[in-house]
């Protein structure tokens, strides 16, 4: 095989990724998708309630070599750290640990780091640990929905106008999806939206309206 754009360490982790799989009773979990390339990564964590230490972590990847390798390395880096320590792991740390990553593959690998951050955030939300409880705004909702992919285009649902008319009022988020309810992707998108929004601390209800058929 000729020279690859990847370091030996990236290839090693790509061939034999560590901590692969699902944790069924995870304390925190997240699924992140990249609008740019269509890669996807899921991260699951178990957290010690007392020490806030990440006792177990697993990931799954629907992605290219840099995505798989980064997913693998960040799980190794995060395991045994407290959630506050793990939050500080950046893409640069992961890339450095891997001996470097090709520049144009940044977004595929950032995804894995975002997945870890999101899994920790999910844990914090579920356990009432969010310190600054900012009221949810339309902007916050949009920001979260930028991580939901429009499967027709591979771009996010906000950018592609698949979701519009977002309103936040009295603990209720309402939004419209530009799809008929029996569309093949309608359910998947609905689930993704719920997953991203349901743990917002001041939200009690999410109302999703589909297009009239």
């Amino acid at each position, binding site marked *: *095989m*000729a020279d*690859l754009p990847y370091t030996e360490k990236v*290839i090693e982790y*790509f*061939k034999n*990724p560590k901590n*692969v799989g*699902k944790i069924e009773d995870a304390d925190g979990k997240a*699924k992140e998708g990249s609008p*740019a*390339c*269509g*890669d*996807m*990564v*899921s991260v699951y964590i178990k957290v010690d309630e007392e020490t806030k230490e990440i006792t177990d972590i697993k990931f*799954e*990847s*629907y*992605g*290219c*070599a840099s*995505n*798989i390798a980064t997913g693998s390395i960040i799980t190794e880096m995060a395991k045994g750290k407290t959630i506050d320590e793990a939050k500080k792991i950046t893409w640069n740390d992961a890339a450095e640990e891997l001996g470097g990553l090709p520049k*144009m*593959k940044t977004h*595929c690998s950032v995804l894995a780091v975002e997945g870890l951050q999101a899994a920790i955030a999910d844990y914090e939300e579920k356990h009432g640990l969010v310190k600054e409880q900012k009221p949810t705004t339309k902007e916050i909702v949009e920001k979260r929905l930028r991580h939901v992919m429009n*499967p*027709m*285009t*591979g771009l996010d649902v906000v950018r592609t106008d698949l979701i519009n008319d977002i309103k936040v009022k009295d603990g209720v988020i309402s939004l419209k999806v530009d799809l008929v309810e029996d569309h093949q992707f309608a359910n998947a998108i609905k689930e993704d939206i719920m997953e991203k929004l349901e743990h917002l601390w001041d939200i009690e209800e999410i109302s999703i309206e589909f297009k009239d058929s």
Partner: protein
Amino acid sequence: MKDETVYLDNSSSTKMDERVLEAMRPYLFEKYAVASSEFGYSLGIKAKEGLEDARSTIADKIGADAEEIIFTSCGTEASNLALKGVAKKLSEDKDHIITSKIEDFPVLKSAQSLEKEGYEVTFLEVDDEGFVDVDELEKAIDEKTGLVSIQHGNQEIGTVQDIEEISKICDQNDVLFHTDATHTFTKLPIDVSKTPIDLLTLSAHTIHGPKGIGALYVKDGTDLEKLMDGGFQENNRRAGVENIPGAVGFAKAVELVTEEENERLKEMRDALIKKIKDEIPDTTLNGPAKDRTPQNANITFHYVEGESITLHMDMRGFSVSTGSACFSKSLEASHVILGIGGDHERAHGSVRFSFGRYNTMEDVDRTVEAISEVVERLREISPLGKDK
């Protein structure tokens, strides 16, 4: 590289046949002079003979006259010359061009360039197997249409267009017709003496010939503007010293193709498609089952990503390519898979296998065995899947 590499990317380029090199050799070391007219010196006359013999061989293969063949530096140049060279000669009331959404880049990008220059360009949709709807084409043609460019065989999914019918419609409407035959030349019959084709793109390196040589067939009487300024070579239609060794090698490559070989390509293609369908769950064939180029198989392996597949395959000694955005330099997913109505997920896990002279049935078995393992492994890592 190890000898046991199984090369299945013959639609990108092929290994040159050694007999091609032998045919080229005299034109590199003995008859290396510039081609000259019969009034020149003998070395140049001999070189010219080689060039013209090559031209005749290629012309014969498609039922053309030798004077209708222009040698170019590659297929890309031939398609650029066809679209831009013709467009520049179109009158102002004939500046509408029609092509399809799934053309290979030379045609697609040339059409986009012309659109920027002010030409009106229609990019026809294709159906879910990649076919241009002949009725849609007919509807798109109006009194302003000057040129239609629809490829013969698709580079990625192998769809073979009905160019008999398409060329007839163009002919009836008095519109010039160009077709990119890079992926069908010598593999499927093309006869310009029977089919009203005005311009046709050919390439040598996809048929075990040398890189750096292509050709454009231009029907006698078709107006064409030169793209490069320079000398009067190729009947004053393409400037630059002729690549005579390349042209001779190109002609040799054409002569070496046999019908038996084309049958063998089809057998390997069909065996691979069937084996994958039988042995690996959750796959989709991209492109048609019938009317497909003999060398091409393109399959999406759901729930996994193409660059990961190709990298794992490479590590096992197999060369294949993918339409995944992660694999491309532009980070854009295959415009062909998206063009047939596939979503990003379908492009993400698509793999193209393209066969050539040096592949065997044993390669098919080994490839399916390897890809089966690779896909299974990657599916274990993937968050997606039927039971997930």
